[in-house]
C-alpha cells in the first residue's frame, strides 16, 4: 500500500525531509510509526505523539487506505 507521510518539527529534522511517499505493509498508523521510527531513528516514543490521517486527528488503530496522508504529531508548543 502506498501512503504519503508528512513530517514536522523534530520528526522532520530526524527524517531529514518534509514528506515522502512510501510503499508499506503497515495496516495502521501504529504499525507505520514503528516502521518509520526504525528507519529514521526517531527518538520520540509513540505514546508521546498523536497522529492525523488526511488532516484530521485519528486513532492509532485506524485501518489505513492507499493514498492516505499521514502526519505524526510531536508534543505541541504553540503560543
Amino acid at each position, binding site marked *: 500500500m502506498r501512503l504519503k507521510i508528512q513530517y*514536522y*518539527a*523534530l520528526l522532520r529534522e530526524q527524517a531529514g525531509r518534509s514528506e515522502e511517499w512510501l510503499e508499506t505493509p503497515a495496516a495502521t498508523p501504529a504499525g507505520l510509526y514503528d516502521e518509520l521510527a526504525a528507519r529514521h531513528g526517531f527518538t520520540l516514543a509513540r505514546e508521546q505523539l498523536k497522529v492525523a490521517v488526511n488532516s484530521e486527528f485519528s486513532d492509532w488503530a485506524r485501518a489505513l487506505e492507499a493514498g492516505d496522508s499521514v*502526519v505524526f*504529531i510531536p508534543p*505541541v508548543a504553540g503560543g
Partner: protein
Amino acid sequence: MFRLTPQPIDTGAARRELRDAGAGGYVSFEGWVRDQNEGKQVTRLEYEAFAELAVKEGERIVREARARYPVKHALCVHRVGSLDLADMAVWVGVSSEHRGEAFEACRYIIDEVKHRVPIWKKEHYVSGDSGWVNCERCAVPGHAHRLG
C-alpha cells in the same frame, strides 16, 4: 475564527473585527517571545505549523469557546516562521456584552490552543544550542540540533 500568519500580527485590524455595538467588554491576550525559558537564554524562535489541521483545530477551539460563553466575537491569530525576542507569537481577542465572559473565553482559547493546536516551537539559545520545546527531554541530547 482562527488564522495563521507568517507576517507580524496586525492587532489593530484583528481588534476591528471584534467591534460590536452591543459589546461592552473586550479582552485580548498576546504571547510574547521571552528572553529566557527554563533557565536558558533565548535568542530567537521558530514556529512551525501543520497548517491545515492547525486551522481546523483552532477553529474548533474558538467554536467551543463561543458555545461555552455568550460572547459577541472571538478570534485567534498565530504567527509562524522565525521570531525575535519580544515579537508577538499569538493573539487572542474576545468581545462580549459583559466582561466576565470575555475574560473566560479568552483564557479558554489560549489554554486550549497551547495544548491542542499542532504548532511547534524551536528555541535557539545564547549557547548556540537549540531545541524543540516539549520535545527536549524526549530527544537524544544534541540529536535534534545535529540534524537541524
